[in-house]
């Protein structure tokens, strides 16, 4: 069963996907579905003995190119729609015990090329309004397969958080004729206390308004950088480099491979905003750790009211991350 149910109070779509209850849950190493298929071995999702990067449609998708008819009838107040869209898995490497942080910059750059290709290919569909590239890393985040991989959801709508970003950015642009994200970045660079690392084309900060202790945003410098497709080869290279730096810093924070949610925020792929410069490409990281052995949970205020409480100061956490190897 899979469908979109409208939440008229929050004015957002909820995706039901009951078949996902049966998805693979921490299989033993010999039955890793993301590994290459070895001769005589368990047939994995990838019927090849080796690969560089592979992308395939999720076996347990939340959204499908040809979704089933909804299981329930909608009403005028609570409409229901088929869960049309695409859910892809991006396997970074055939090496099951690697992490993105451990890959060389060249390999991370290759991954950026793949992300760029998928953004363009999926975003070209008239059914798709938003292409969301992300990685959930670590058991603490709820990951069910340890093999290094990310995911791509191609939604038939602009998801709420992205919609809010687009609306804020458009309003600011109309009022100030300036890119909101770049205005924030300008303020961060002028202040300097929350900057973690930077290069010619990107800046990593623990933002002024961080909601998690070690939240980091990597923002593209310069106007007209609304999505991966806007980047030159030099910018792709710099994005790979700053990702590598940031991920290694994360792993050096507590001496273990840090869990995180990594989200690429890009402009929608349809509508007026698809051609407008008020949006700015950035990557957001939300590590769940608030200390080495304590996690931040989204509890009453966050889950029930949408009001985040950060137990730390962004200035302190940025200084902590800045001091870690590798430094600028």
């Amino acid at each position, binding site marked *: 069963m899979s469908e979109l149910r409208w939440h008229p109070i929050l004015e957002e779509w909820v995706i039901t996907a009951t078949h996902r209850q049966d998805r693979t849950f921490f299989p033993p190493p010999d039955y890793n579905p993301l590994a290459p298929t070895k001769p005589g071995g368990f047939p994995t999702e990838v019927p090849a003995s080796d690969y560089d990067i592979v992308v395939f449609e999720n076996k347990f998708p939340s959204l499908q190119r040809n979704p089933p008819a909804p299981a329930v009838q909608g009403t005028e107040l609570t409409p229901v729609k088929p869960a049309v869209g695409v859910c892809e898995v991006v396997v970074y490497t055939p090496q099951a015990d690697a992490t993105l942080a451990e890959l060389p910059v060249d390999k991370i750059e290759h991954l950026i090329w793949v992300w760029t290709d998928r953004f363009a290919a999926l975003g*070209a569909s008239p059914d798709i309004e938003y292409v969301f590239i992300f990685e959930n890393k670590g058991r603490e985040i709820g990951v069910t397969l340890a093999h290094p991989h990310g995911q791509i959801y191609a939604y038939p709508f602009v998801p709420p958080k992205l919609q809010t970003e687009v609306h804020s950015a458009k309003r600011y642009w109309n009022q100030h004729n300036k890119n909101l994200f770049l205005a924030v970045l300008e303020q961060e660079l002028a202040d300097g206390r929350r900057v973690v690392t930077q290069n010619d084309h990107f800046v990593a900060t623990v933002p002024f308004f961080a909601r998690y202790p070690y939240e980091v945003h990597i923002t593209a410098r310069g106007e007209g950088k609304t999505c991966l*497709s806007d980047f030159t080869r030099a910018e792709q290279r710099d994005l790979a480099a700053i990702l590598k730096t940031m991920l290694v810093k994360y792993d050096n924070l507590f001496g273990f491979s840090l869990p995180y949610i990594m989200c690429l925020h890009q402009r929608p792929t349809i509508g007026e905003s698809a051609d407008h410069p008020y949006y700015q490409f950035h990557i957001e990281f939300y590590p769940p750790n608030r200390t080495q052995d304590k996690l931040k949970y989204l509890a009453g205020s966050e889950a029930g009211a949408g009001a985040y409480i950060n137990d730390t100061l962004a200035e302190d956490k940025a200084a902590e991350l800045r001091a870690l190897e590798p430094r600028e």
Partner: protein
Amino acid sequence: MNKQETVKDDGRILIYYTFPTEESGSDPIAENEEDAHV
């Protein structure tokens, strides 16, 4: 970057991306130029 798109037995799309070293320095998304501004 080379891209080989296949279809699995159950109809799902699977794409192999490969990166021959001799292509280093070329435009990695040239093959998708028409889609570059979706």
